[in-house]
């Protein structure tokens, strides 16, 4: 979970309360509001393209593209070296947003789906400002909308419109959408999955593995309502599953301990899977300011970027 803002360097910054943020009708404005005030710098691209900045030489190995062979070095030293450049703007980010019914739950004035959409919009807007290409895939039990990653102004608007569609699916099936992402997103990039992940983890692990194996970098945002973590209800009631309409009688005071234990175990398992796959796992409570998520995300990106740089040097 993302740590409270007070411990962060953003402590002094004025964070927007999600409750207040959600009162803004337009998703785009919301995203803007979050991103506003953020440092407007670029970040390192993990991709080595052929544009501007040279990064390193590497000895030629058979099979390398001969276009990148540095003939001048060959001429000087009679050795084959491959020139490598740092790509500036070519982060391709594919947002995968869960729009199943379970996301329609919210104990606050807004649902998890709203929160997740805002989060996705914020990321999209931020990345767009950075000049990165952003794509979107929404899903419930199947893929609903797919927009490949592009860097165009109208594309961002399209993403916003798609995100604003109400969540309407029934069940949460992570497997099919993620496999579909693996099929659709050929180009390596960043895949950001926003979901509550309230589904059995066994298949999820396999599909995340497929995605990771295809060379995609993974970031997993688990969005949960605060009550979903604590089951903080007073009265015993008939609890109705939002997806299956199943009803059972629950006395929260009795069921709380076991529930909290189970959901924590589930989150921990998800986190373990992510770690295993090298994915970043963020758990977001829907009452947490989105700036924290953005900040955490960027920090993690920068950390990774530096690590990659170190690895390279």
């Amino acid at each position, binding site marked *: 979970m993302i740590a409270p803002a007070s411990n962060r360097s953003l402590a002094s910054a004025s964070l927007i309360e999600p409750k207040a943020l959600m009162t803004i009708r337009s998703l785009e404005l919301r995203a803007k509001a979050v991103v506003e005030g953020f440092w407007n710098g670029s970040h390192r691209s993990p991709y080595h393209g052929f544009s501007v900045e040279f990064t390193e030489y590497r000895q030629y190995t058979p099979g390398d593209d001969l276009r990148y062979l540095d003939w001048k070095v060959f001429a000087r030293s009679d050795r084959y070296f491959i020139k490598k450049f740092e790509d500036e703007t070519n982060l391709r980010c594919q947002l995968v947003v869960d729009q199943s019914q*379970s*996301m329609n*739950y919210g104990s606050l004035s807004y649902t*998890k789906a709203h929160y997740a959409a805002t989060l996705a919009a914020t990321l999209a807007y931020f990345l767009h400002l950075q000049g990165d290409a952003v794509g979107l895939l929404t899903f419930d039990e199947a893929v609903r909308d797919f927009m490949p990653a592009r860097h165009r102004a109208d594309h961002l608007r399209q993403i916003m419109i798609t995100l604003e569609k109400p969540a309407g699916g029934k069940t949460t099936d992570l497997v099919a959408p993620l496999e579909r992402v693996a099929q659709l997103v050929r180009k390596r990039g960043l895949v950001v999955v926003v979901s*509550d992940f*309230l*589904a*059995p983890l066994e298949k999820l692990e396999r599909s995340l593995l497929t995605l990771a194996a295809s060379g995609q970098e993974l970031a997993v945002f688990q969005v949960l*309502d605060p009550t*979903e973590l604590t089951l903080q*209800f007073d*009265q*015993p*009631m*008939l*609890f*109705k*599953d*939002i*997806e*299956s309409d*199943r*009803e*059972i*009688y*629950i*006395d929260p005071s*009795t*069921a709380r301990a*076991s*529930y909290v234990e*189970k*959901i924590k175990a*589930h989150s921990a398992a998800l986190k373990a899977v992510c770690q295993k796959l090298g994915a970043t796992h963020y758990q977001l409570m829907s009452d947490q300011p989105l700036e924290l998520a953005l900040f955490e995300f960027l920090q993690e990106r920068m950390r990774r970027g530096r690590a990659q740089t170190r690895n390279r040097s």
Partner: protein
Amino acid sequence: MNFLAPLFLLGGIAIAAPIIFHLIRRTTREHRVFSSLMFLLPTPPRLTRRSRLENWLLLLLRCLALGLLALGFARPFLKQSSPNDPPGGPAKRIVVLLDVSASMRRAGLFADARAQAESTIRKAGPGDQISVFTYDRVAQPVLSFGEWNGVAFSERIALATSRLAGLQPGWGGTNLGAALITAAEALADSENDKTVGTRQIVLISDLQNGSRVEALQAYEWPKGIELVAEPLKTRNPTNAGLQLLADTADGDRQAATNVRVRVSNAADSTREAFKIGWIKAVGGELVGTPVETYVPPGQTRVISVPVADANGATMIGLRGDDEDFDNTVFVIPPVQQKVTIAYFGSENAEDIQQPLFFLKRALPDTPRLAIAVKAQAAGAVLAPDVMASALFIVTDLLPANQAALLREQALAGKTILFVAKNAAAAAALGPLLGLDNLAAEEVKPPSYAMLGEIDFQHPLFSPFNDPRYSDFTKIHFWKYRRLDPAAIPGARMLAKFDRGDPALLEVPVGKGRVLVLASGWNPEDSQFAVSSKFVPMLFSILELGGGLAAPVGQRMVGDPLPFPTERNETLAVRTPDGKTVQPPAESTVFSATLQPGIYRVENAGRSQEFAVNLDSAETRTTPLPLEELERLGVPLARKKAVVAATTPAQDALLQGGAAESRQKLWRWFIIATLFVLLGESALAGWTARKPALSAQTGTP
């Protein structure tokens, strides 16, 4: 506080229900939509901790309502024991009325009755009072309340049992009505005694249909006395009975040759064919040719049994019946009594104008009675049989010797009827009365004279002492002889003429008497001889002198037997069991006819036999419906209440029931419950409204 139905207190366990309901967290029909139930398991409704009871007051009210309801249903009562109360509740006063009539002689019936009586007595508590009466024709105390109270509680039952042990059924008829009245009177004495609770008459009887209950019709049953009937069940339903039919004293010539008996068969009998015949001893063989008869159940037949078959037997028996207590009747063969009347007068017996003519014709012979009128010529020597006559009638002047003889007879107790035929003959009265110069005066009223004033209290006229028979005005007297009653000492005027002159005088002479009739019954003097009063008057005069034996009639067990008027010291009664009883000198009847049979009254060498039979009503052994008693105003106790009271615990329950029905505390509990429920409803309503109100006002 005690409870009549303590089991209802278990209903108080229901108090647990509101407590549990208060502890159970309220099950709601509210739904909460939740994202996923994959981590949730259904929770059963569970009890909250005690500390989580929220509405203490509501819980208290609900528990109180249930508790009060349970208490109310348990029917509580307060045991009110005043210092006067004996331990064990209010005392009962019971009269045990035991039937000892002849019908109780049926097989096993009396043993059952005695056992029932003993059982009733054993149930008595220390404070109870019991009196025991037996009854047949009359109720007799066997154990009085005084005797019961006179001994210690521990000895009472033994005393009563010993009294019961000596009892046997008698032969009397059943007068249930009179017995119930006697018992009720015995109980009614304690009406104002506050310590007495229930007053009961426990009737132990076969309650046969022949029980007489008419006496109850005219009796107002005392309040607070109830009857507990314990009808006994007979083992043999079959019972046929025999009753002697009374034959008329005159006219029925057949009576001399046949004795008529009625055979009645009980409605629930199983037999129909019977034999009837003379027997020489009770239970003995039938003598001669028995008469066979067929009497369906519930019907009667009249059978003639020929006297010729008797051969000296005095009983008629019935055979073919299960119960033989009513199968014998005692019959005295009809005997004609011979009575002589000596008539002293000079008339010709055939002279239609003379009194003798009418006298002879007024007294015809009957099978029971033959009256001979012997006319004596003046101065004739009087034969001994004439002197033994029952009545002497004098109408003429008598020679001095005859007058003296007659006066001796009168002094010895005989009756002389002197008829003053004319003023001259009236002089003959003087020697009879022992008076001189007794003169009479001939009176001839202008039209006729009537009897104006009659002493109906006198035995002579007492048979006429009834408005239907007391009209003597139709007898016209054309003439009569005026006697001066003042001249005759001791004369009692039995009848006067309308002019005030004596018509009939009674003059006591020694033990006997002289009756003086101031006018004759010959047509010249009066219409007396042709009036309806003539013959009864003659019989009255005969009876007055003791000349007629008592009428035979039907005599039941318990009926008194008359003694002859001229009883002397040797009078004795021989009872059927061979005993000789000397009745007390002052008694005029023999009342101790305790069993059926032939009673012989012996007096001065003469004896008279009386057949005393069983009361014919005893034969009707079909049970009397108890509703009949209720109809007559006798309140019947619920039998269950008495029979069930076999143990002290049940007895206490009964007393508790009485106390509870008096106090009716349950009503207050129910009212209190209603109030508590009202309060509970109000409180619950207020509690339910409170959150809604606070939500409306915005307060948390």
